[in-house]
């Protein structure tokens, strides 16, 4: 029987939600999983709300539709809570992970009565402190790995380091900051 995990990402064009979904697919792939990472495409430009998806499974995935009943939802920008029904179809035994400075209580009003687990992370703060720039997708990636447990944490850290070493071969100075952002997010998501 399949134990497929389905994740939906909400972000704004240009914020890196699509990249984060592809990175998550990458990490899961490297631990031997079958993965899908795909954005929902339209003609939208920077700033417009966008959706990206992940499917992760132990066996080959053939399904090629969007995800309507995700196990996890990741919200990269909490201003989206006003305009997007982020909990649509979200399984009650799943969870939502939100990048915000607000408390869970403040947030919960915007979740359309969702009764499952709610996690928050101040990804902006982590990003600013460890990278010097607001790139929330790296900390959010850490948070989703922590919450979903789709990849074992140590493996995740190891694989991400390799991936950063490859990606930032020409500017190794940023590897440390990215790794710090990841490990902080693993700890700070609550």
């Amino acid at each position: 029987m399949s134990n497929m995990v389905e994740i939906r990402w909400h972000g704004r064009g240009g914020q890196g939600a699509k990249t984060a979904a592809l990175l998550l697919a990458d990490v899961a792939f490297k631990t031997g999983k079958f993965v899908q990472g795909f954005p929902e495409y339209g003609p939208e430009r920077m700033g417009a709300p966008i959706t990206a998806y992940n499917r992760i499974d132990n066996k080959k995935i053939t399904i090629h539709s969007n995800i309507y009943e995700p196990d996890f939802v990741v919200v990269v920008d909490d201003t989206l809570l006003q305009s997007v029904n982020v909990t649509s179809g979200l399984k009650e035994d799943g969870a939502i992970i939100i990048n915000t400075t607000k408390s869970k209580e403040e947030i919960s009003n915007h979740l359309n009565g969702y009764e499952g687990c709610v996690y928050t992370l101040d990804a902006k703060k982590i990003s600013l402190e460890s990278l010097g720039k607001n790139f929330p997708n790296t900390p959010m990636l850490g948070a989703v790995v922590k919450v979903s447990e789709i990849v074992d944490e140590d493996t995740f850290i190891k694989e991400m380091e390799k991936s950063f070493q490859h990606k930032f071969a020409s500017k190794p100075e940023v590897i440390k900051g990215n790794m710090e952002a990841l490990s902080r997010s693993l700890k700070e998501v609550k």
Partner: protein
Amino acid sequence: MPIRDRLSGNEAISVAMRQINPDVVAAFPITPSTEIPQYFSKYVADGVVDTEFVPVESEHSAMSACIGAQGAGARSMTATSSCGLALMWEMLYIASSSRLPITLACVNRALSGPININADHGDSMGARDSGWIQIYSEDNQEAYDNFIQAVRIGEDERVMLPVMVCQDGFITSHGVENMDLLEDKEVKEFVGEYTPKHYLLNPQEPIAMGPYATDKYYMEHKRQQVEGMKEAKEVVLKVAKEFEKISGRKYGFFEEYMLEDAEVALVAINSTAGTIKATIDEMRNEGKKVGLLKIRLFRPFPGEEISKALKDVSVVGIMDRSETFSTQGGPLFFETRSALYDNPNRPKVVNYIYGLGGRDISTKDIRKVYEELYEIKMGKEVEETCTYLGVRE
């Protein structure tokens, strides 16, 4: 050794192109196929391939340049979608009638208007009678495998026809999935060198291509062209067998999924076939004998073989992701139902038009279709043979 990787469908095609290292690639960007020439031009810029890349000023010129190049004796390729394919239309016919085995990666997208950038099959289905071999791909793996095989199929001396390898725009072209790549050397050996018998840049034999032909000759030309298509069937199977040897993956005219004992079945192409498989898995667990016939080779159309494969099914639903405006259904429906006509126990056949302009189709939608097929099997009257899935009434 297969190389385990995760790539988008567009990346998969550009990797295949890199491994093939064609002589000429001429292309013009159009969403969602744009990434293919983008990735490929980086390979050119980095000297990873020694292909001549021609960044033309339109798709019409892309196909024209491919015709000039292939005619000159060079293995040539391009990629396009939607309106780009439509702009090539005239040249598609000229490529095939000139018997030039050009390879085209078609990333399926709806045709305008209204303008829409998402997946449907209106583009390639419109080109179905242009004399191109058409192969459809469920996922990234198939897009890659089909593209490599396409070179061999088209260039076979008995065939000498251009080949279009289709996959769904965004759904597979931009979706990252697991796949197994072949080693560069394996691909190079598999495709070999392009060695046409006659070509323009043969110093020993100047030739003339692209004549005016009166009615005294035109029909013989067309009849001979059809023969190339007929021969293509055998070549497709031969090439698939050889490909299986290096890849371990089996290919044929179509794939039968849980079809052997199926009571009701769907016929589909491209990525939706995968979603149908997932639905079948669910429904089979519930004891429902549902099946799928996924067409891989649409041109030439393997009608007899399809008819045989569907002979024991009572109700068949044909899934068309394109409209013909004939008011009689979609192209897959026409071809399949026509193929079934001579079958003495032909199944009941209905048509579903779905997913136009990228409208998503989920396992839930497909489950409903199967349920309706069962109702028809149980005797429900079919009011309309062709219906629209998920359209707001």
